[in-house]
């Protein structure tokens, strides 16, 4: 065997892309080893890992894998900084912040509303309608969910009311986007404003300045009897809200729907090339309507989780931009349910960590709140490769 062949053999498995990926993994490791339970107290191993990661990133970058390479390089720098910070922090502090079971539970809490909205966003965008109005639909769900639960004395009916409200808002978006051929980003922005107005108006009109009563029926937590008190798992998932479990269950359900059923195939065809779908006899317009309305219901459920599920009250504009993060999760997750789950868990983890960081420093914890948005920006800019959305998203379909 010639020297060239030997050199070529590893080159096949070590494609620039894989080298870049390895860099990403090493970056993560550089940070993780300084955390509980590993708690490496010297930055040396992290430095070595981060340097190796940077090298991998650089190799990938010069070998035509610019996005993943540069991304890995930047991530390695970040990891290095964080690892230094950890190594110089008190072990006690680290253990308080990185109590994994609590972090995981909080991550799930933060991720749930995002997940519902992101799943809705996936359905909507897969059908070819851009849904920047997720925020407004969530907000509708948040208010009308708690209003329903209050008036009808049942969290389940409250969630139902939320979904109806979200569906109505989605219907408006659908009429404008599909029938009136509006610019979908503009109409979505209008929907968001409208939702702030409607929910705020009815909230004040109905509850005045006292806010929602404190005795409203809430979505219960699911107490897993076997593992509720078992260490990490007990803390992390032993006592989790019902809606969280529903959201998690929806991920495989939607995956199967989109990629393994005939209506999923049709939905995707409509979003990619509506003209083609039309010429094989598929009802393009009704499919898009159904998708937008379904997205409104899901997003509203995400909003309802905030009010009826978690906090038990409503305040004006309580979704606070979560719809936009969900939208980012849709893109981050490349329009796939599993991808969106990973993205929302990542964002949820960021928020959970930000919650616990004030142990170190109040003001830096604040700064940490910006991290999910920075990550999204970096992700959208293409660390994970240029993601390609449904080809016809945003283009109204005109039947002749």
């Amino acid at each position: 065997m010639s020297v060239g062949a030997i050199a070529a053999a590893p080159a096949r498995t070590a494609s620039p892309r894989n080298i870049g990926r390895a860099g990403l993994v090493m970056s993560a490791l550089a940070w993780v080893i300084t955390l509980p339970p590993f708690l490496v107290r010297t930055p040396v191993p992290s430095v070595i890992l981060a340097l190796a990661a940077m090298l991998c990133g650089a190799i990938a970058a010069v070998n035509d894998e610019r996005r993943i390479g540069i991304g890995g390089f930047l991530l390695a720098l970040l990891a290095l900084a964080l690892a230094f910070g950890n190594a110089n922090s008190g072990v006690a502090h680290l253990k308080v912040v990185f109590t994994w079971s609590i972090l995981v539970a909080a991550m799930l809490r933060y991720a749930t509303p995002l997940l519902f909205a992101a799943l809705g966003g996936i359905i909507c965008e897969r059908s070819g309608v851009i849904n920047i109005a997720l925020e407004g639909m969530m907000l509708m769900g948040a208010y009308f969910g708690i209003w329903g639960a209050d008036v009808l004395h049942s969290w389940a009916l409250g969630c139902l009311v939320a979904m109806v409200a979200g569906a109505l808002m989605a219907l408006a978006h659908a009429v404008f986007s599909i029938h009136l051929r509006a610019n979908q980003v503009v109409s979505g922005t209008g929907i968001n404003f409208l939702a702030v107005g409607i929910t705020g108006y009815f909230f004040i009109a109905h509850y005045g300045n006292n806010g929602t009563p404190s005795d409203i029926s809430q979505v219960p937590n699911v107490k897993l009897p076997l593992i509720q008190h078992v260490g990490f798992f007990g803390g992390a998932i032993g006592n989790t809200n019902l809606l969280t479990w529903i959201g998690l269950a929806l991920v495989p359900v939607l995956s199967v729907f989109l990629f393994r059923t005939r209506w999923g195939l049709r939905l995707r065809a409509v979003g990619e090339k509506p003209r083609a779908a039309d010429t094989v006899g598929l009802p393009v317009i009704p499919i898009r309507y159904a998708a937008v309305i379904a997205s409104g219901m899901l997003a509203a459920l995400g909003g309802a989780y905030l009010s009826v599920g978690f906090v038990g009250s409503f305040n004006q504009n309580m979704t606070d931009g979560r719809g936009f993060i969900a939208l980012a999760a849709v893109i981050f997750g490349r329009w796939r349910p599993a991808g969106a789950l990973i993205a929302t868990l990542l964002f949820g983890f960021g928020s959970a960590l930000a919650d616990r960081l004030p142990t170190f420093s109040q003001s830096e914890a604040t700064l940490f709140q910006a991290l999910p948005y920075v990550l999204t920006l970096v992700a959208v800019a293409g660390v994970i490769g240029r993601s390609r959305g449904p080809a016809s998203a945003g283009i109204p379909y005109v039947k002749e």
Partner: protein
Amino acid sequence: MADSSRPALELRGITKKFGSVVANDRVDFDVYPGEVHALLGENGAGKSTLMSVLYGLYTPDAGEIVVDGEPVVIDSPATAIRLGIGMVHQHFMLVPVMTVAENLVLGHEPVANAGLLDLKAARESVHDLSDRYGLAVDPDATIEDVTVGTQQRVEILRALYREARILVLDEPTAVLTAQEVQELVGVLNRLKQDGTAIVFISHKLNEVLRVADRITVLRLGKKIGTVPRQGATEQSLARMVVGRDVLLSVEKSTAKPRDPILAVEDLEVRDDRDLEAVNGMSLTVRGGEIVAIAGVDGNGQQELVEAIAGLRTPRAGRIIVGGRDITGKGVKAATAAGVAHIAEDRHRRGLVLPFTLAENLALREFRRPDISRGGWLRVKHMRQRALGLLREYDVRGGNCDSYASSLSGGNQQKVAIAREIASDPELLIAHQPTRGLDVGAIEFVHKRLIEERDKGRAILLVSLEYEEVRSLADRILVICGGQVMGEFPPDASEEELGMAMTGQVAAAATSSAAGAPA
């Protein structure tokens, strides 16, 4: 089995209007099982409109559709499919990111238990059908990765999967290579034997004569007549298609070529999907001559033009204009070297429709000091210059403050041409300069191109129209697969050119006679 004594499909008195434009005027058409009936006419004669009516995409304003003796109303493609009508569209109606199998079954998906999609059954359907009709395709290939010919096969297979008894093919050969056309003819023969009624839409005379049993000619939305293939000749059909004996021709003197202005050397250019589009092309255009690039659409014309105009960076080779190397240097450098470019699509590229005519006329040269100086736009100068050009080019229907969108197509094209010529170019690229224009406007464009030639400009004409190429060009370069197949004089026969366009180069290369290149 289909009753072959009764038409599978009859269209009676179909009329379709778009505003004041009558696209179909009381058109009758029928096709029998086991027959290929060609629908022949120029671009814009109303062929596609008629078939869109048949497929439920347009609702006719008057007329009747009869399938198997039963009058039917076709209000959507779904109805058409149910009636056994299958359509192979000119622009394929396939979802690019999905696989062959997924595209095949879309709308009629086999479902396994639990309601899940049965992709295995879909794949088997692909295999069955492709075996039966000799149309080999890989069911798991993604549409955007396969050739145009394969995509067409998928479209045909899809119609067969739906058990179409009436198959409509809309300009099916426009994008095919010679080999693929040959295969298509074989497939059509097999389908005929099975009793399928086939409507074959085309504007190519020789092709129709080769495939069809009967031929119906449309002109300006009206049916001119139906003739059997036996006894029909290209001449007789041409007369029906065009409506007169003499084909379009322009008076012109013989060229007086001067020094070479454009030299393209071993050019290699890739298309948007990073595939070889121009594959080692070399050509020269001298001042005072019109060199035409002729070929089947999609054989590298677009990429060649874009590379010369500075819109696309070549992979290899050189482009020299007036002694300056402008390879990959961008539009500004090309313009500076004296390249002007009449764009193929005036709506997409040639004009900014919501701009005024004055603004549009400045588009090529807005950096000139008399239009802008020190970053400031000299609006008054811009308008004055526009006024002069509009008068010179006889643009009607608007003044220099009208929006380009308010002009008719012919006048829009005049604006685009005026702008390009006004830049006083050494080399003028005319890419499909008469696409979608009426006869009067075509004549204007042709005359103007010849005038510019006589002023000593080098003109590179890229056209898909035989007649245009033959009446304007001083030399014809036929390209296929991104390569120059041979050079022909303007009086070369359609057969000769056609052969070369489909890559059959043997006979062609030797017939190169007039106007030897540098």
